[in-house]
Structure formats: structure tokens, C-alpha cells
């Protein structure tokens, strides 16, 4: 039977068929749906971990215990999990261990554009890269086989266009993979210097065997065609290149680390001009150059952003490739002048609780260190209330850094904003630093009771687990108090005046303080607003535009200010800021 699956769903299906028993992950676009779909299988224990480091350590533990285990994350999550990654390469595994990492070329939903293949090389871990959903499933299963055959973790590298595209997948049965015996082996699993030195040698030998595997494995394949042009590519880049020049010869790589030296050399010998086409960094290209081969790569193709069929076809044309073999149908495209079309960046939703927070922060004209989540959108106009956004947790620690660089006076005009899930992920350690090192930062935890941007995943403070079952609920107030913050208060960000007063009091305090701005995400099913939409009394409205400053998508201004009742969530924030009381709830409008 065939099913139409997202790449991410196919990885989940592959894990199921491979007999995986334990999966741990932290959500992050474009990887989130892998774990969400794994959680649908009752045979697999699945959890959301507080962060990727924990997730990978859980998976490592499960693998040492003899189960096939998997950890899933986005590319920046692998930075967080890098510590266990490098040493799990030394210990090797018992049951198979696969780390799925999804890169985001073009930064559709990320703060940077990093290339996870380098982690494989740096940690001496093999990396597989699929180019469609069927391969995503097949490579997941294969990754577990490689993991167990070579006693190594394996990285499965996904990318946005593979994770979030659907294609047909042949569905198979779950294989009956037994829990392997667990035997204590400190030489293998206790990485102290003496043991780690021995394991380091094993790791070097293992890499040689993996390289040999890469030479022979079916997942690296040559497709000879017109030999005047030879292209080495993997993943999404292979698809684009195939569309641009279907008649070329291809070396299609499914294993991108270790790379197959002999296979590449023999392919290079057979073709006249050799190209490497890859997204992000020059990972394959650099290797091909070390082999002394003449190759064209990023001096021709762009170094930034996503590749596309159009880019590849036009660049190959520029490089003098015969037009006969190129598919140049894009040249028929009459690109319209879209300058006149308004830009449409993402925006905080109608009813979003963060809007109240940013309205106040803007009004007080504070310096705001920000963090990763929906609330990063508060940086954009009209709210424009964020100064920095670096990585998960950095709001808290960098506010502390600002204070230590510029003094306490500066801290009196600074707040850190961080989401609830992000705070648990890695904000808490920053807060401990503030308390320990005599900081006086004010941290606002935007507690909307969910992991919002990635599509509403549960986390330790929501009271539910990944399958929606009641779970032990982390108490954030007590957590903050426990690390030594004496000023912890909970406020509703929609009670604007009260909230503003709270912020003013806490930034004035000469000690660390935490304001938990608590109001659930407006999109959460269990709290969906039943409030009637609001409307504008155009007779009393003076068109001052204060409501527009909230940046609510439901408020429009076509000669007169009005509220789109199908978009309005009934939160009433606009009514609160209206100086003439011209905005009222729908049932008393007309």
C-alpha cells in the first residue's frame, strides 16, 4: 500500500518499521512533525524533552540499554545537543541510535542557515541525506542497520523542502527488533580519559570501514547519461538539478559523510565537466577538491539561500552548458512587477497575548533582549519592541551581559522577554547566572501555555504530555523562586495598566525579578475565545490610529477604521487603548 506522506511523516513511518522503541525530541521547524507522527504509534515510547541535549541523552541512554532509539531536532537544536553527540560517537551504541536533524536553507523559520553535515565530519558520525519521502523512510531504516552494524550513531539529515514536501511512500510492517541485552561495559560507556583514548582509536578504524561502505552502498549511485556534464548532488539539490538538466550524468549521493573517494574519482574520469551542486556550504565540493579533481561549485552557484531549478538552469547556461541539454522553460516566465504588492511578513495573531506585553514595552521605550518563538515577531513594526534575538535562552543571559557592560542604570531600562517553552529549554540557566552573579535583570516570561511557533506542542509546564495525557506540571513561579529570585509575580498581559505598573516596579528594583505574563495562546483549542468580535463606532472614532499601533491583523483602515469580524478574536485590547471609547463589543454595536 502506498501513502502520500510528508518527508517528516515518512521518517516517523521508517522509525516505526525499524522497530524503534524510544524517541525523544524538542520541537523546531522544520523537524517537528517527525516526533508528532512517531507519537501516533503506541509501540513507540515518545516524549517532548525540555531541550535537544536532553532529548539526545535520553536516546543515547535508551540505545545503550539495548533499544533502537531516535532523537529529532532542527539544525540549531543540534548545537544544543552537540555535547552528547560528540561523545556518543566514542561510546557507540548497543541498540541502533539515529539523530534526525532538519536544516533550513533559506531560513524559512530559523535564525541562521547552518549546515549539519559538518557535525557528521567533526564527530566522525555517518550522515545520510534523502531526497524524497520514500528515501526518507528507507534511509531511516537503513540508518538503524548502519548504526548497529558499525556500532555508531547515525545522522539523518533532512532539509525544509524534504521535510515539508509530500510524495508517495510504500508502507511496510513493523519489524520485530528485540531489545538487546544490556551488559555493563565501562571501557565502552564510561568516557574517562583512559577509556576514551582507546575508543578514539576504534572510532578512527570505524570511519575507515564506513568509508568503504560508502563506496559500495546502493544509496550512492551513478546515473550515466550525456557524459559532457557530470553532476554530484544529494537531497533537494539533486531534484532541482535533475529538473534543470535531466539528460546529464549524475552521481547521486545518499550518504554525504563519509564520502566515497573511489566512486567520485571514477565518476569524474567518465565526465567532461564536473559540477558539485549543493545547498549551504561547500561540503562535498571541498572534499572533491582535496582529491585533486577539477570541479565547478560555489564559484558558480550561490552560497546563500535555497537552490532552485531556476538558479541551477541559469547558472549552467552561464557556464556554457549546451542549451540542448538544459531545461530552460523558466525563461518563458513573464515575471510580473510585484513591487506594487504589499509585503506580508508574519504577524502576531488577533488575540495574541504577547501583543499586550509589547504594547507596554514600546510605551515604556525599553531595551528588550528577545528570544526564539512567535514573540520574536514583536521585533517587527508597528510593535518594534525588541533589540536582540540570538538563540534559545539568550534573552536572559544577554540582558545580564548588557548590565555587566553598561551598569545598573542601563538595567533599569532593560527587560528580557522569553517564552515559557524557551525558558524551560535554556532560559533557566541564564536566570541562575543572573542571581548567582548579582545581576538585577528583569525577565518577562511570556507564558502562553504552549510551544507556539512550531504548532502547539506540549512542554513540562503545560500539564500534558506529547500524547495529550495529563502529566506532572512544572510550576514556573516556584522554579524561579527556587533559583533565588525573590521578586516573582504573575500578571495578565491584557490588563494593560496593571501590567505596565508591574514592569515599571520590577525594572526599578535593585535585584533580579521575574514577571510571568500569563495568558494562553489565542489559537489553543482548549481556551478558544468565545468572546464576540469588537466593532468601531465611526461616529465617535477620531482616527487617531492608536489601535492600529497594536499591529492586530483584524484592524483595517480603508478610509475609516474598522474591525474584520471574521478575524477578530474578541480579546478587547484595542478597546482598552482607544481614547474615545469608540471600540465596543459586537453585541452592543448595532
Amino acid at each position, binding site marked *: 500500500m502506498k501513502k502520500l506522506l510528508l518527508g517528516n511523516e515518512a521518517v516517523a513511518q521508517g522509525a516505526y518499521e525499524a522497530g524503534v522503541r524510544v524517541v525523544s525530541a524538542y520541537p523546531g521547524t522544520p523537524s517537528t*512533525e517527525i516526533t508528532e507522527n512517531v507519537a501516533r504509534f503506541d509501540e513507540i515510547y515518545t516524549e517532548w524533552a525540555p531541550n535537544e541535549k536532553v532529548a539526545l541523552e535520553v536516546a543515547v541512554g535508551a540505545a545503550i540499554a539495548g533499544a533502537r532509539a531516535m532523537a529529532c531536532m532542527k539544525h540549531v537544536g543540534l548545537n544544543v545537543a552537540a555535547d552528547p553527540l560528540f561523545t556518543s560517537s566514542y561510546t557507540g551504541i548497543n541498540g541502533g541510535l539515529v539523530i534526525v536533524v532538519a536544516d533550513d536553507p533559506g531560513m*524559512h*523559520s530559523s535564525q541562521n542557515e547552518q549546515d549539519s553535515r559538518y557535525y557528521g565530519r567533526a564527530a566522525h558520525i555517518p550522515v545520510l541525506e534523502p531526497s524524497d519521502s520514500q528515501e526518507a523512510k528507507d534511509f531511516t531504516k537503513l540508518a538503524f542497520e548502519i548504526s548497529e552494524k558499525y556500532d555508531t550513531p547515525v545522522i539523518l539529515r533532512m532539509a525544509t523542502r524534504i521535510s515539508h514536501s509530500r510524495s508517495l511512500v510504500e508502507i511496510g510492517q513493523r519489524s520485530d527488533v528485540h531489545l538487546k541485552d544490556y551488559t555493563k561495559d565501562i571501557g565502552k560507556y564510561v568516557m574517562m580519559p583512559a577509556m576514551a583514548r582507546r575508543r578514539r582509536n576504534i572510532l578512527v578504524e570505524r570511519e575507515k570501514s564506513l568509508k568503504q561502505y560508502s563506496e559500495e552502498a546502493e544509496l550512492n549511485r551513478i546515473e550515466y547519461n550525456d557524459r559532457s556534464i557530470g553532476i554530484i548532488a544529494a537531497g*533537494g539539490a539533486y531534484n532541482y538539478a535533475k529538473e534543470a538538466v535531466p539528460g546529464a550524468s549524475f552521481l547521486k549521493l545518499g550518504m554525504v559523510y563519509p564520502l566515497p573517494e573511489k566512486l567520485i574519482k571514477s565518476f569524474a574520469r567518465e565526465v567532461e565537466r564536473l559540477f558539485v551542486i549543493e545547498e549551504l556550504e561547500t561540503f562535498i565540493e571541498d572534499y572533491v577538491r582535496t582529491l585533486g579533481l577539477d570541479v565547478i561549485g560555489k564559484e558558480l552557484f550561490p552560497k546563500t539561500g535555497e537552490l532552485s531549478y*531556476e538558479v541551477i538552469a541559469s547558472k549552467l547556461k552561464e557556464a556554457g552548458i549546451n542549451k540542448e541539454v538544459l531545461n530552460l522553460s523558466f525563461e518563458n516566465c513573464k515575471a510580473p512587477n510585484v513591487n*506594487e504588492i504589499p509585503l506580508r511578513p508574519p504577524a502576531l495573531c488577533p488575540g495574541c497575548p504577547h501583543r499586550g506585553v509589547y504594547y507596554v514595552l514600546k510605551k515604556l521605550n525599553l531595551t528588550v533582549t528577545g528570544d526564539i518563538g512567535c514573540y520574536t515577531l514583536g521585533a517587527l513594526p508597528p510593535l518594534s519592541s525588541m533589540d536582540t534575538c540570538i538563540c534559545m535562552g539568550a534573552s536572559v543571559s544577554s540582558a545580564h551581559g548588557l548590565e555587566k557592560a553598561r551598569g545598573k542604570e542601563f538595567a533599569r531600562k532593560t527587560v528580557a522577554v522569553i517564552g515559557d517553552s524557551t525558558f524551560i529549554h535554556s532560559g533557566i540557566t541564564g536566570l541562575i547566572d543572573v542571581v548567582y552573579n548579582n545581576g538585577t535583570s528583569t525577565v518577562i516570561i511570556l507564558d502562553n501555555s504552549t510551544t507556539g511557533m512550531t504548532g502547539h506542542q506540549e512542554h513540562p509546564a503545560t500539564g500534558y504530555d506529547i500524547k495529550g495525557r495529563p502529566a506532572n506540571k512544572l510550576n514556573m513561579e516556584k522554579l524561579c523562586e527556587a533559583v533565588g529570585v525573590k521578586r516573582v509575580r504573575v500578571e495578565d498581559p491584557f490588563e494593560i495598566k496593571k501590567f505596565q505598573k508591574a514592569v515599571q516596579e520590577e525594572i526599578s528594583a535593585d535585584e533580579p525579578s521575574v514577571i510571568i505574563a500569563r495568558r494562553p495562546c489565542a489559537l489553543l483549542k482548549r481556551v478558544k475565545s468565545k468572546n464576540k468580535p469588537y466593532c468601531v463606532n465611526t461616529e465617535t472614532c477620531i482616527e487617531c490610529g492608536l489601535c492600529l499601533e497594536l499591529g492586530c491583523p483584524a484592524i*483595517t*483602515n480603508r478610509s475609516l477604521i474598522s474591525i474584520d469580524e471574521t478575524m477578530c478574536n474578541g480579546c478587547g485590547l484595542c478597546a482598552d487603548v482607544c481614547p474615545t471609547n469608540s471600540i465596543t463589543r459586537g453585541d452592543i454595536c448595532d
Partner: protein
Amino acid sequence: MLGGGTIKLDIVINGVGGQGVVLASRIIAQTAMKNGWQVRTSETHGMAQRGGSVTSHVRIGENLFGALIPNGTADILLSFELAETVRGLEKLKAGGKIIASSARVVPVLAAMGKTRYSDQEILQYLKKQPYDLTLVDAHDLALKAGHHKAANMVLLGVLAAQKLPFAGDELLNTALELLPPKLHEVNAKAFYLGKQAGEGYYGNAAATS
């Protein structure tokens, strides 16, 4: 759009995050699959879904390579929002079919008057382009059907009136398989209102004004 021995139908779906673009692409793809076609899609998840521009691609045919439709080659542009229609034009082949909703979702900065959103200019521009344009107010028809959120079904209904490699009504069947029963009536109604618009029941003037 289909012919010459090889089958190829590339559909670009444009809209605004939250309008149901991803679901619409899934319905089309699933229907094509049920009819034995190869199919690939590409979807927008994550940050852009928060009210930003979103695009889905659905490729139906044989020998599909990538999930992304090359510029200038899409057979149909299905657009859920007026301005997003123009953003999608670069994907469309010469003479391609546009099915667009005339309903607007005004971006925050345009509402504040910091960027322009002139629907009259956009409408005039679209009508001048060398494409086969069907314009419907999907928002209005969805309200008629019972709920504004059924606008995506209105547009699928308009699509169902086109020549497709499967019976148009199968789109509705697939949708009903994916939607909870309590939403079936509104969505079916919206689909047929769209289909009537696509077949020109309201007259071309009504459908394109």
C-alpha cells in the same frame, strides 16, 4: 494542460497563513493519488503560517523530480487572496489558468497606511494579463455556505469545474474524509457554490467583477 502522451499538471496555491492553503494542497494531492497519479507537494509550515504569505505546490504527473514547480510552468494558480495572486504569477505558464478570490486580507503595515494595497489597481492589472482568469469572492460565498473558514472549499469547488485528470467532485470526497463530520455540511455547500461559480452559473461578469 494534459496531453501529448505525458501527464503533467502543476498547481500553485497561494494565500495567507491560516487560510487553509496546506489543507487544500493535501486534498488535491490525495485525490490525484487515489486516481493512480504520481504526485509531489511542497508546503509552508512554521513562521510564515502566522499571517504571512504561504505557498503550496502540487505536482501531478509522471517522472516528477522536485516538489517545487519551476517558474513559468504552472498550469493553474489557485489563490486565496487578491494580492497573493500577483505574487504567484511568476509561477504560471503563458495562458495558464488563474482561480483567485477577490477577498482581501490586509497586512498590518498596509492597514496603517505604511505600504499600499490598492485592490482596484490589482484587479485591473490581473485582468490585463494574458491568463485565463476566474475571480470569485470566496469569502462571501463561504459566508453564504455558513462559515468564512470554508473559503478554501469554495476555491476547490471552482477548481473542480476545470478539466482535471480526475472527476472534480472527488475533491469534495477527499475533503470530507479529512474533515470532522460536523463540518461536512458547510464545506459541501461551499464546494458546490464554488463549483457553480467556476462553471459560470453566475455569469462571467459576476464571476470576474
